[in-house]
């Protein structure tokens, strides 16, 4: 497709200041962007959040399953996307644990296991000390095979995961001993940064058994456009980027307060630089168009 909007032969002479702005050295933009993020971090700016329907749907999906029912949390991201996704994971684990859901952790990304471990250490153990490994939660860890892992789990969990991450056989762990396939779960949540992730969970887990469980997903801003087609039918709820995390954090904390609010408040803290940087981008777009109009009115270019 031809992309008309990249044409930028803005003005040849460029005598006016505004018109010259059209060809502004992009390093000034870089500097402005850097400052707009650095300053709010240093000043710790924070703004209120208002839950969107998608975040509320995610919250409601978790609320709608019976208390104490087993849920599967798949950590399909790595540290590179942790800034966006870890706040969701923390809030989700706190939410599930507050409702006494049995939690099974797993990862489709090699480094996802570390993120799950981290969440267990920082959220589950300190704030839900009643959770016993093997009985109330199980960490299955990472297995290679991408969507193949999901496909096999859909028919036979022990075949894919003969043992949990620490090497204990599944049949020795009360929580998972009787589980045959994914239909044992009431909810599957994939916090995902790309492939394999929430999309694969929808395709290969929800596809073959659409009514067995609910699927919710957390996604980076980039990936959301790929997941949108699946919401709200194949995926009941979706958390989108830090904003989704911040909104969900508020919903969860509103109903299930936590002793140390900052543990599930990372999303909201990270929204500070967002506002300033977004306003900068809006300003840049306006500026670019003013410069174009100014350049055009001086008879510079088309």
């Amino acid at each position, binding site marked *: 497709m031809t992309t008309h909007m990249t044409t930028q032969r803005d003005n040849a002479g460029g005598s006016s200041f505004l018109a010259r702005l059209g060809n502004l050295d992009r390093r000034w933009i870089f500097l402005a962007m850097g400052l707009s993020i650095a300053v709010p971090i240093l000043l710790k700016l924070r703004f209120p959040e208002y839950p969107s329907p998608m975040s509320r749907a995610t919250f409601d999906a978790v609320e709608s399953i019976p208390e104490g029912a087993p849920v599967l949390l798949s950590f399909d991201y790595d*540290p590179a996307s942790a800034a966006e996704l870890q706040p969701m994971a923390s809030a989700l684990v706190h939410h599930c644990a507050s409702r006494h859901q049995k939690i099974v952790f797993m990862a489709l990304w090699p480094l996802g296991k570390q993120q799950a471990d981290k969440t267990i250490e920082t959220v589950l153990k300190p704030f839900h000390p009643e959770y016993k490994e093997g009985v109330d939660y199980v960490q299955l860890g990472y297995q290679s095979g991408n969507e193949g892992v999901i496909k096999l789990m859909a028919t036979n969990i022990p075949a894919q995961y003969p043992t949990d991450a620490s090497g204990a056989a599944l049949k020795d762990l009360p929580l998972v001993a009787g589980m045959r396939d994914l239909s044992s779960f009431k909810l599957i949540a994939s916090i995902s940064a790309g492939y394999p992730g929430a999309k694969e969970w929808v395709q290969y887990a929800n596809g073959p058994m659409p009514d067995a469980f609910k699927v919710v997903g957390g996604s980076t801003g980039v990936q959301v456009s790929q997941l949108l087609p699946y919401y709200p039918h194949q995926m009941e709820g979706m958390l989108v980027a830090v*904003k989704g995390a911040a909104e969900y954090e508020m919903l969860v904390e509103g109903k299930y307060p936590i002793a140390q609010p900052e543990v599930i408040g990372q999303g909201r803290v990270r929204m500070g630089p967002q506002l300033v940087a977004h306003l900068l981008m809006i300003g840049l777009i306006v500026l670019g168009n003013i410069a174009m109009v100014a350049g055009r009115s001086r008879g510079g270019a088309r």
Partner: protein
Amino acid sequence: MLQRTIPIAILCLSGVIMIVAYFVSFAVSWSETVNVWFNILSAVAFVLGAGNLLAVNLEKISSRRPGWAYAAITLVSFFFMLVVGLLKLGAVPDPKNPLVHFAGDYETSASPYGWMYEYVFSPLTSTMFGLLAFYVASAAFRAFRAKNVESILLLGTAFIILIAQTAAGIFLTGWIPQDSVFAVLRFDSLKVGITEHIQTAGMRAITIGIALGVAATSLRLILGIDKSYLSKN
């Protein structure tokens, strides 16, 4: 024959087998088996990659081409990481099998490999990733100019979403009551409307098109019509 017909036959056969296997109960796990093979194959193929990396950089160094010092840095960091990783040098012994050296954990930051990952690999990759924030800004400034209907729609939508993404949207239009007729003009409802209805429709059509494209491309390959992957030496 060996160089053209057999590869085409292999391609055709393996493609057809995978299609049929999807419908045969006992072959359901074949795709996973093949997946494991390909993981192994790509690990074996590192020999090619590493060989090429060495050849290119050694050539740069030996012929003292401009920037040869950087080639040397690449090689040194490559070999350091490779050796500490493959030999698990300084790995933390496995508590269950402390005597088996190669059972040790080499990925903790207490081992050289893990340290390199945490303090060299990870900061470099995530900062490269972070550069995108700058480029998103410069791309928006440069490309979002209202030149025609199409570009107005592109930049207008981006504009609305950007405002709605932050508390600024609520600040500007939050006073419109949720239950009034004008509630659709609230930035948050506009965002939901655009993403849930228009973007979803657009993405759906793109996805359907891609599915057809993938099917046709796969079929062209399986039928042996597209043979551009074959060399002719």
